[in-house]
């Protein structure tokens, strides 16, 4: 399900609109992932606080959203631009790629929460496809 020209346009326009809130939304999405999918906490056992008010979690969520925003700007070559991050996730972090889908769901949920009128079903499908392609590019170096 590769990205059409229309998908790319929709994603870029929507991301432009939401960019002032991406750091906050990233933190919110990560908090929700750790709360609703407790198995994901296994990847963060080195942090002291994994609760909803954790500064570490919120900061990391913002970092992740920043990287996603960067990927939006390089949407024409996700595999190439995510190569280094893919190596990180493959060799160092070794995150099971199934978890990318879980995080994507929480990102989408937070986007709908913060921008209920803009995150229409048409925008939703393009963003869902984008996050799916991003996850694929992120798992590129796994094996």
């Amino acid at each position, binding site marked *: 399900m590769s990205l059409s020209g229309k998908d790319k346009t929709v994603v870029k326009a929507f991301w432009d609109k939401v960019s002032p809130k991406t750091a906050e939304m990233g933190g919110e999405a990560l908090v929700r992932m750790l709360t609703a999918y407790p198995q994901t906490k296994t990847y963060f056992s080195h942090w002291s606080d994994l609760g909803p008010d954790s500064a570490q979690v919120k900061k990391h969520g913002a970092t992740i959203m920043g990287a996603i925003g960067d990927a939006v700007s390089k949407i024409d070559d996700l595999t190439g631009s995510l190569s280094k991050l893919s190596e990180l996730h493959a060799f160092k972090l070794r995150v099971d790629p199934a978890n990318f889908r879980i995080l994507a769901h929480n990102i989408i949920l937070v986007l*709908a929460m913060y921008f209920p009128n803009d995150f*229409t079903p048409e925008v939703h499908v393009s963003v869902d496809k984008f996050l799916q392609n991003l996850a694929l590019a992120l798992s590129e170096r796994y094996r």
Partner: protein
Amino acid sequence: MVEWTEQERNIITSIFSNLDYDDVGPKALCRCLIVYPWTQRYFASFGNLYNADAIKTNPNIQTHGTRVLHGLDRAVKNMDNIKGTYAELSVLHSEKLHVDPDNFKLLADCLTIVIAAKMGSGFTPEMQATFQKFLAVVVSALGRQYH
């Protein structure tokens, strides 16, 4: 047997008692049909589903969305035996409707997203976790009688 805490029960009843079924039901079904277009295969008799606008204004989808959401009422009233409550519906979805049970999860996700959009920050991470647990049990019950 699924265990529910007092708090989880309260969260579920609270979400459903504040729900506008006629709005949320159709919205969730529409979103599912648009975001996961292969789900349209089950609604060939519903008429025009050619594009997002057609789906959103299709009266059959409106009616059906509301019906599906009301179908969850039974689970809310019988949280300690969702499996038994949905045995018949599971047989229906398997034998008569021939719905791939993977689709239940897609609709459940869309419903969660529509409710999050409606409730905003009122839909706390804890409520999300409980609601998703509830829907996971429903989804499992609906797939139970497939063979």
